[in-house]
């Protein structure tokens, strides 16, 4: 890098860092608020909504949540377990089948290939809301309420993920990669699973975060399709806290919210090195 330290570039850097730090604080602060308020009591929060440091009422808030659990309303572990099941399954289905479809669109030459891709693009434009009414009707008439299947199986068809994977594959895939496996007599499906999928790890990791988060935070569909408390997902559990107007135990509510976010944080930070390293939609050629 040519080192020309002019005043202009220094000023630029200063402004740049100022902006970045501001954005960073802006992005981070609501989380800090949430975690700090989770340790404060209701009275403290009433007095000053913005915390500056942690307090000592974590135990009290936790006790309140346990009491709510005992009364059958809020149950953190059930919500967590259910969300984990639904989100993991959704992520798995979306990733696996999107990769498979992207593979079909890239590795093979078939007549309907381009029209099919155009179709997928078109589908990507379709807002989910459009089919919601019809989808809910269908689930009701099939009697599949209180069942995770209608929440998970639709993830098999995830047009946006297919698009992303296809872009990645187009840039990184050459037939040579699989030709030797074919000569050895490996079936196409095995080739996909053993050669192509590992190749797509960075793209998978990035999309995994997006899909998992999206599924974890979904509130509308589960609310309509699930009414047995033992099946509630985490966001639904949080609803039981924020929705009860009579007893706004603010500290406990924040603790519940923090508990919802915590698993996501862990998952996110586990995969975040891919974000830092930067997912390249195309490798460097030659």
């Amino acid at each position, binding site marked *: 890098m040519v080192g020309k330290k002019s005043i202009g570039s220094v000023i630029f850097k200063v402004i740049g860092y100022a902006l*970045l730090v501001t954005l*960073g604080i802006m992005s981070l602060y609501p*989380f800090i608020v949430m975690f700090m308020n989770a340790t404060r009591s209701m009275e403290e929060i009433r007095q000053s*909504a913005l915390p500056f440091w942690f307090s000592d009422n974590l135990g009290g808030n936790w006790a309140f949540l346990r009491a709510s659990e005992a009364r059958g309303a809020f149950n953190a572990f059930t919500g967590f377990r259910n969300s984990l099941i639904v989100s993991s399954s959704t992520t798995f289905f979306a990733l696996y089948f999107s990769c498979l479809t992207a593979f079909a669109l890239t590795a093979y030459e078939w007549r309907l290939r381009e029209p099919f891709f155009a179709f997928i693009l078109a589908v990507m434009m379709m807002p989910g809301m459009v089919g919601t*009414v*019809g989808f809910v009707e269908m689930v009701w008439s099939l009697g599949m309420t209180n069942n995770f299947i209608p929440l998970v199986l639709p993830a*098999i068809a995830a047009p946006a993920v297919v698009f992303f994977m296809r872009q990645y594959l187009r840039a990184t895939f050459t037939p040579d990669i699989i030709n030797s496996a074919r000569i050895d007599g490996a079936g196409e499906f095995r080739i996909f699973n053993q050669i192509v999928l590992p190749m797509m790890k960075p793209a998978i990791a990035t999309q995994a975060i*997006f899909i998992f988060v999206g599924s974890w935070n979904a509130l*509308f569909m589960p609310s309509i399709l699930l009414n047995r408390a033992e099946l509630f997902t985490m966001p639904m559990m949080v609803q039981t806290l924020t929705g009860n107007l009579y007893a706004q135990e603010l500290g406990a509510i924040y603790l519940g919210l923090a508990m919802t976010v915590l698993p996501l944080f862990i998952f996110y930070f586990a995969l975040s090195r891919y974000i830092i390293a930067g*997912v390249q939609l195309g490798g460097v050629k030659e």
Partner: protein
Amino acid sequence: MNKKAKSVNYAKYGYIFSIPFVVAFSLFTMYPLFRTAFMSFTDFAGVAARETGVMNILENPLENYTRLLFENELFQTSMRNTIFMWVINFIPQILLALLLTAWFTSRRTKFKGQGLFKVLFYMPNIITAGSIAFLFSTLFAHFGPVNYLLYDMLGVIPERFQFNQSALASQLIVAFIQFWMWYGYTMLILIAGVLGMNPEIFECAEIDGANGVQQFFYVTLPNLKTILLFVVVTSIVGGLTMFDVPRLFEDGGPRNATHTLSMFIFNQAFGGRFFLNRAAAASMIVFVIVAILSILVFYLLRDKDAAAIKREIRARKRSEKQLEQVRKGVQ
């Protein structure tokens, strides 16, 4: 590009591996979509309809549509609100994301701690809409921190501002929440796109003497078109179906200021008198709008060079075929 070295045998795998997608899509998206579409032309409404499941096509099948578009002011308001809040959210979002992308992929200026920043900027996307709505409600409450800052500490306003009674303030807050939640995601996608570009083109530009700004505008951006397309389209779709945040923040705001299209559809279908047919018609209208906008975006961002090359290839193939036929005919 893919070499045409595969034999025809393998083509069938293209079809086979696409089957799961097609099946799932037909079942979970196409079928409900057709159901919704059909519903929009019927009288399917009310509790009685839901229980008997009977749908009768209306005498004037387009009645639901015409009444929505021309007579239903709440629908029109929702449309305006949704578009307004989306534009206010998206323009700053894409600009900021592009700026950050430029900074984080620049070859000339390196910012330290990029990794940390990237991680931080994406974090708002993790949180549930419900939690965010709750947090922001408390932030902008009558005795909340924002008022505390403006009124008690800085004294810049004469009295505590009622955020939830001001239409404009509510809309701006909702737009800001959306911006806050998504700018990191947009940035990451754009960075992924830039990293995928061939570094040679950047090197060429450097040799030609282009500085950072010029590089960004003349090299990076044009090559980013496909990814930009992806981002804009998914943002349009997401924006037009904004539901969780406006609903949980102020439930539509004062005088329906933050009432969005999705909320309108939701309330029509699941509240009040269960106008499922009208909700379906509104959904179809949203679909058409999104399709038109997407096609427009497609057209604007199309890769003109690639299209030209394709056309040339096709033209050449055609002339080759004609030559073949002539030769065959001669023989």
